[in-house]
């Protein structure tokens, strides 16, 4: 939590009472590999800041196949934001791919922090903009780039992640088959 507080302090003046409030709506929790933090079909009240390890969010299609939406490593946030925003049941599952430590926040309280502490308003807006930019980039990459280019970008974005993930996690994130991913890796190895 101290690291997150430090990061926040680099971007705004954090009053002691705001810091105290952040502590009051969060707790640091260690999870084991395979633990599910959000399960499809359940209510979502929490959002998670990753301090170590690797998590992923995924949806399951009607045929029972998993499709990875996001990997979250150190310093990333992860939750089912559709469920939180629309007050709906989760359509995503969030699981730990490795033993992981997260700071678990009450999502509603965190979302409303700017009403108590207005200095968080621009901070939250910037965070949201960054998130939108990253999502737009992901969609555009999916539309414009070749599978190999998407894989290269993925490796830049998530260095070292391949140790923790199975092929199908990455293949479904990139929107390609496992066979295609294997082919791309073989081609890269030849270079």
């Amino acid at each position, binding site marked *: 939590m101290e690291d997150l507080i430090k990061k926040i302090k680099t971007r705004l003046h954090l009053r002691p009472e705001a810091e105290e409030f952040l502590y009051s709506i969060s707790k640091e929790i260690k999870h084991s590999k395979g633990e*599910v933090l959000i*399960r*499809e*079909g*359940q209510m979502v009240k929490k959002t998670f800041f990753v301090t170590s390890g690797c998590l992923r969010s*995924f949806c*399951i299609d009607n*045929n*029972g*196949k*998993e499709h990875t939406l996001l990997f979250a490593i150190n310093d990333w946030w992860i939750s089912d934001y559709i469920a939180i925003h629309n007050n709906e049941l989760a359509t995503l599952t969030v699981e730990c791919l490795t033993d992981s430590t997260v700071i678990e926040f009450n999502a509603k309280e965190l979302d409303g922090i700017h009403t108590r502490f207005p200095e968080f308003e621009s901070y939250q807006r910037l965070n949201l903009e960054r998130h939108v930019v990253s999502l737009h980039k992901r969609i555009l990459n999916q539309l414009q780039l070749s599978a190999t280019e998407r894989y290269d970008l993925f490796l830049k974005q998530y260095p070292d992640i391949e140790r923790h993930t*199975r*092929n*199908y996690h990455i*293949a*479904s994130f990139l929107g390609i088959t*496992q*066979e295609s991913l*294997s082919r791309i890796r073989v081609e890269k190895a030849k270079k």
Partner: protein
Amino acid sequence: MKALQIIKYGEIKDSLDFNEVSKPTVKANDVLIEVKAAAINPIDKSIILGNLQGMLPLPLPSTSAYDVSGVVIEKGDDVSNIEIGDLVYSRVPQEQMGTLAEFVAVTREAVSKKPGNISFEEAASLPLAGLTALQSLEYAKIKKNDSVLIHAGSGGVGSFAIQYAKAKGAYVYTTTSTSNVEWVKELGADRVIDYKTEDYKSIAKDVDVVFDTLGKNYSLESFEVVKQGGIVVSVVGPLDEASAKMFGMADYKLPEEIAKASSEKEAVYKFIFMHPNGAHLNDIKSLVEDEKIKPIIDNVYPFSESVQAFAHLSTGRAKGKIVIKIS
């Protein structure tokens, strides 16, 4: 709920019917699965024909089939390793047989989460054949550079066994008919023997392990190709004496010719009874997710066409598994 039931023993078209039956109740160790897909196997056909009445007496009508994949919608008080909403697969135990239905209750020990990278239909195709192959080849402690002969490489068990043995690093001989040679090669077998044009006994010699999936004369012939001190595992040949004892047949003796052949080769002969096992299914899950094993499906039938699916199974010509989509 709707279920495909065996109403009497006999010809498939006369012996199966859709009935409205009550939803299974969940005991403390059970999960209730909403069935998405089920798969049928040769044993299901044998049961319907009445060939197993002596060994597996059933109260009729009984719902058919053992393989299932679906979603957990309810669980007993003692189930801690599986959650409601989990996508699972199972080869259900004998006493819970009946996966050709909208719901099935299964003891948690027989259930595993399904592989995340395959569909319900593909997952349903794996348990019985996969557990049979895995438990047989695990008994043989198959390892890197072992040579293994797997009979009937195009069958449900054989096609899984080839991939499993390759995942363990073994050298795989397999037999199949001419029309299947190419796709069986694609499963990874090192030497595919076309039994219509080649004599497998002159090709697979002194192998470490024979996996007998055919029985009859093939069980005995296994000792012609296995190495001195090797292992013959069979899922269709005669019972071995230890297995027979388990079934209360204390004075059972291995057929003389098998005993003699086994003794001459100082080879082990073991009959494998596949047993439902969620931990083994979890091992299979990892192998599938790592693409070491791919489900091989011949055809997927809608629930309403289950009888046609059994007719297809009866031809014995399916390349891979026959799956029935339930919902």
